[in-house]
């Protein structure tokens, strides 16, 4: 049997067309990395307001009179008068918006509850915070914020939560001017902790909060804290998103398996049909080997080739993306369950994505193989295979929109296992198990048809 598979393998790799198609796949993989690199280079920078810009904003706000426009005008005037916080990417810019929202809002739009005492406190807090902003002194600003929060009258737990980002930054000697990654993490922690605090208060007051919501918050917090403790700047989350360009490009290269699928369909479509069209089938079948063994060897060769292509695309994409972006091996795949962080290998996670993406390749290869064996026409097999590969998802979309529920039993509706697993299936309530069983049933039908057609054919 191994010798038969070797024979089929040699046949495929004796043809120049195979190498042309392989080169095409390689060009796509390398080209994809390069294009990703070019598109990612145009990074977003901050914008710096000039005096003219500020005048423009003010006159616009005066004419539009959007709700809260008075506050915004005051802020722009402050920005202009003190010549500060003009760069939108600076911490001062964000801090100034925060200062106006927190300490000026109630002063500009006073309510009946506003006491004189409170009014004086807001003014003094505003002055303390803004003087640090004008000075550009982060530590002074952070301390001013902490003091203001402590004075705000919230309970100790909430105060603790709200001051946490500033305390963390000061304790760890971090300055937003250096753009440390921890900044957004601690802010997110503070936001989620406050959310959690509110949930707990609501629960105590008798409002029903679902366990799932609570658990999701706990899980997110667990991951954020894990990152701070273990100094993890970038990671891949359970949805596969990441801010690391290498891993992003590596994951997205999985879509190139479609190109590899075309190669597989061409080879599978020719694999039986070409023996008939060139007349070599007679020499193949007069050997002391049962026909079932010959057709098995052809199928196994195709599966082996598809697996090799999958591995090849994975490795080549990994290497070219590493060259383009610089590989960062310290990016883990983090998930959390019941508030406990699970650390996974990103390489394995990406491999899993590739495997899920390759389901269509294996299915369409088998289909082209069946048509090739049944109709003995490589043109029909390749045509149908490629059309199914490209148009299959479109057909399922249309059927889903027309409300034809039987569309879920089509092979195309079940090929995108990755999508189905993440819950974005075209038809409602489509589970991975359903998709897997449907795929297996199709594969068995394809293979049985191909085998039966081949073993009974009169040559």
């Amino acid at each position, binding site marked *: 049997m191994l*010798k038969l598979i070797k024979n089929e393998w*040699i046949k495929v790799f*004796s043809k*120049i067309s195979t190498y042309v198609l392989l080169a095409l796949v390689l060009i796509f993989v390398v080209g994809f990395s390069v294009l990703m690199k070019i598109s990612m280079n145009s990074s977003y920078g901050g914008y710096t307001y000039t005096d003219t810009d500020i005048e423009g904003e003010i006159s616009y706000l005066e004419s539009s009179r959007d709700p809260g426009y008075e506050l915004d005008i005051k802020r722009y005037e402050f920005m202009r008068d003190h010549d500060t916080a003009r760069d939108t990417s600076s911490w001062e810019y964000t801090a100034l918006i925060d200062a106006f929202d927190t300490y000026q809002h109630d002063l500009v739009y006073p309510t009946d509850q506003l006491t004189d005492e409170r009014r004086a406190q807001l003014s003094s807090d505003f002055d303390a915070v803004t003087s640090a902003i004008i000075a550009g002194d982060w530590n002074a600003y952070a301390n001013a914020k902490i003091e203001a929060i402590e004075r705000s009258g919230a309970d100790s737990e909430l105060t603790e939560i709200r001051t946490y980002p500033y305390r963390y930054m000061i304790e760890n000697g971090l300055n937003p001017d250096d753009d440390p990654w921890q900044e957004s993490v601690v802010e997110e922690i503070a936001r989620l902790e406050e959310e959690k605090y509110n949930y707990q208060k609501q629960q105590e007051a008798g409002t029903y909060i679902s366990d799932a919501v609570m658990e999701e918050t706990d899980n997110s917090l667990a991951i954020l804290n894990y990152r701070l403790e273990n100094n993890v700047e970038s990671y891949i989350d359970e949805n596969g998103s990441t801010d690391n360009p290498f891993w992003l490009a590596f994951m997205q290269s999985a879509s190139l398996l479609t190109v590899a699928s075309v190669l597989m369909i061409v080879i599978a479509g020719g694999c039986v049909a070409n023996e008939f069209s*060139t007349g070599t089938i*007679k*020499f193949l079948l*007069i050997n*002391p080997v049962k026909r079932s063994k010959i057709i098995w060897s052809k199928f196994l060769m195709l599966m082996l080739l598809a697996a090799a292509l999958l591995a090849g695309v994975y490795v080549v994409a990994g290497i070219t993306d590493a060259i383009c972006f610089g590989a960062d091996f310290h990016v883990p795949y983090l998930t959390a369950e019941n508030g406990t962080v699970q650390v996974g290998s990103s390489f394995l996670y990406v491999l899993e994505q590739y495997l899920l993406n390759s389901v269509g390749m294996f299915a369409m290869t088998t289909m082209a193989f069946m048509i090739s064996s049944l109709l003995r026409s490589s043109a029909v097999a390749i045509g149908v295979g490629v059309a199914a590969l490209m148009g299959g998802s479109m057909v399922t979309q249309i059927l889903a929109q027309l409300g034809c529920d039987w569309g879920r039993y089509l092979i195309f509706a079940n090929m995108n296992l990755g999508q189905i697993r993440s819950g974005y299936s075209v038809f409602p309530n489509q589970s991975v198990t359903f998709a897997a069983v449907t795929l297996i049933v199709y594969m068995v039908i394809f293979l049985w048809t191909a085998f039966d057609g081949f073993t009974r054919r*009169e040559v």
Partner: protein
Amino acid sequence: METAIKLEHVSKNFGKRRVVDDLCLETHTGEVFGFLGPNGAGKTTTIKMLVGLIDFDEGEISVCGADVRRDFEKAMANVGGIVENPEMYRYMTGLQNLRQYARMRKGVTEERIREVVELVGLTNRIHEKVSKYSLGMRQRLGVAQSLLHHPKVLILDEPTNGLDPAGIRELRDILRNLAHRENVCVMVSSHLMSEMQLMCDRVGIIVKGKLLQVTSVEELINQTKGTAGRYHYAVDSAERAAEVFRQAGQESLLVDERHLEITLSGECMEETLLKLNRMLFEAGVGVCTVSPVETQRLEDAFIELTKGETQIA
């Protein structure tokens, strides 16, 4: 002498048409067996059934004792062959093609591959792609392929197709050697009857799917011999000789002034010849040579046998 191929009451229908009808045939090791028949008689169909390319509806076929249906791999281990055209993988070299077949059969060494390549005279061109081969070269490669695993039965469908006269002669020698020295059963089908006459020991004639007869080549030729004979006379005057023959009651055919032919029939042709020659001598006609014209070649016998049945069935 063992039984090599055995067909017992084999029938095959293509739809409603009966292509092979109750065919019984037995060939032996050590003989070259010729399979003759007009186009569409069922030769290729029979050969395809023999090597398992198509199934048959009735009967049994065995090769060296192994049933083709039940014991396909064992039966085919003893068979080498070419069916219809020698189509090989054109994108591979001759040697790569042979290696493909070598891997599918048991006990074929690189040494054996070299041996068969040498035998069919392809040594110098074996590293070239088959797409550059002529039909004759591909035929040689096909023969090499069929011999790789020392088959006891060699089945060749029109093997001389595309070969030059020297090649035909070579192949004939190879096949006769295989049969007579290495005790192989060689089964050949061909349209070139004169070829068969030189190559085969026995022939089977198939017409409209029915096996008419199986005989040795000599028998087939002799079958129609002795009932009629043509003789060519070279004389000094054909006209005077014709006059003498007419007196003896013998029709003759004038070829030119000095040559004429007569056709004798009956049991005692030699007596008649003696009498005629004596009369020519007495009449003063100078006789230079008298020679028999051989007409009863296999071809004539074949046409005679299949007379009226050469319409494509």
